[in-house]
């Protein structure tokens, strides 16, 4: 029964991760509306339940039961499949992310990682970038000019910033000498002073900027500039099909928050008196708040400014960072 136990354990872990992340994605929409409202001196959702907390359930019921419209000119099979790709790739990428420190449950040691592989970070980046097919296929199969332009913009944005993500993460990896996220976490065991953010500040900033761009968050949310491309690749989508893109975006936000916390901010190592599990929860809550804060505070950039930023500022900086790290290390 040894192998069956592994299968059952993996299934339980995977279901837990999927359920928790889907729940967090739903809850993040409520938090986002509240935080944005408070930053603009409004109250946000207030009517459904105490402080509008049941707004979540109301939105869910509406989204789940909404009529499904498929435009008549669209390429129907691709149009229907495309939204599934976004959450599927985002959830699969989480298979290699260690969420918490090991803990014991009913005398059984649980490793809170679905697949403990030694090239974890490559797996996460590779699988998460498959999500790029969702906007591309959605935009091209809708047969709609807004969708086509939105898809083209989204894809070049994601492609360009993938280069920056890869290059910025190389410098910390040179210091650590391993691609496993658990090794990266263990490298920073010596408290706040050993966090990689202090040793690699440039890589940290570059990775954060690339993370904002990869999840299409505000300074770079060129896909949903209403005055230019209506709502980009999702123009012809409605109901749950549109909702799946949304779930994928929020799941990606959570993945990026976990990655930044683990690689640069000490991951799930305990800080002073705070236990490791709580520490990483605080860190990812902070990053999700940062995503919303930036959305409230910054206008978005123009597409040509985005390309300028990526290829002429961030990429040379990332290359320079690798050169410097290499020379210092040897």
């Amino acid at each position, binding site marked *: 029964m040894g192998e069956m136990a592994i299968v059952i354990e993996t*299934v339980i872990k995977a279901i837990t991760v999927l359920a928790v992340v889907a729940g967090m994605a739903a809850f993040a929409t409520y938090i986002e509306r509240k935080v944005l409202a408070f930053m603009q001196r409004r109250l946000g959702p207030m009517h459904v339940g105490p402080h509008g907390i049941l707004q979540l359930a109301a939105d869910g019921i509406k989204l789940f039961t909404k009529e499904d419209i498929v435009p008549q000119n669209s390429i129907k099979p691709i149009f229907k499949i495309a939204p599934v790709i976004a959450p599927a790739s985002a959830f699969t990428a989480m298979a290699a992310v260690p969420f918490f420190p090991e803990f014991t449950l009913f005398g059984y040691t649980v490793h809170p990682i679905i697949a403990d592989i030694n090239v974890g970070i490559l797996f996460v980046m590779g699988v998460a970038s498959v999500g790029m097919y969702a906007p591309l296929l959605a935009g*091209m199969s809708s047969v709609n000019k807004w969708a086509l332009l939105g898809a083209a913009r989204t894809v070049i944005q994601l492609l360009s910033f993938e280069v920056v993500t890869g290059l910025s993460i190389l410098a910390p990896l040179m210091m650590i000498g391993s691609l496993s996220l658990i090794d990266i976490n263990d490298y920073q065991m010596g408290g706040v002073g050993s966090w990689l953010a202090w040793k690699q500040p440039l890589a940290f900033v570059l990775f954060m900027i690339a993370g904002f761009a990869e999840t299409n968050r505000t300074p770079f949310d060129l896909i949903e500039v209403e005055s230019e491309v209506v709502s980009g690749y999702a123009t012809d989508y409605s109901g749950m099909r549109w909702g799946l893109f949304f779930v994928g975006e929020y799941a990606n936000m959570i993945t990026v928050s976990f990655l930044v916390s683990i690689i640069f901010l000490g991951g799930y190592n305990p800080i002073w008196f705070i236990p490791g599990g709580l520490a990483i929860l605080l860190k990812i809550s902070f990053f999700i708040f940062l995503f919303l804060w930036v959305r409230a505070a910054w206008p978005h950039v123009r597409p040509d400014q985005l390309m300028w930023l990526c290829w002429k500022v961030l990429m040379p900086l990332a290359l320079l960072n690798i050169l410097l790290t290499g020379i210092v290390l040897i």
Partner: protein
Amino acid sequence: MKLFFFTFVSSNLRYYIQHLKRREDPRVSLEFVLAASITFILAILLPTIFLLTKNLGPNTKGNRAKNLAYESGVSKSFGDGQGKFNVKFYLVAIIFVLFDVEIIFLFPWAVNVRELGWFGIFEMFTFMFLLASGLIYIYKIKALKWQ
């Protein structure tokens, strides 16, 4: 087709489980393959279940006006939804392929940089210098200049 798929999956699963039993050291960790495929199947399943819930609500075929593509209310739309668009988008995609291959090439080097020492540094910096000069050429021909 469905039967073929099922036998394919089940035979693969049996193969993995046999390897797990023998605790061999295969090229790819089979526990990982198993775990990743289980996650992938569940990750496909969850959105599919989400999509099926539309049957709870009103289930109409829509009407002609509702099923049109969104064109800002213009009844006779101008141009084609699958028409041409700026070639710069393709250009960026091609440049991306170039640099992404560079990054994949850099990953194994980055992990072993300490063991390789100055030799590895010189080799890889030469490679990066060549690609950086390619980047300068791309700036020069204004491939990344929009308008």
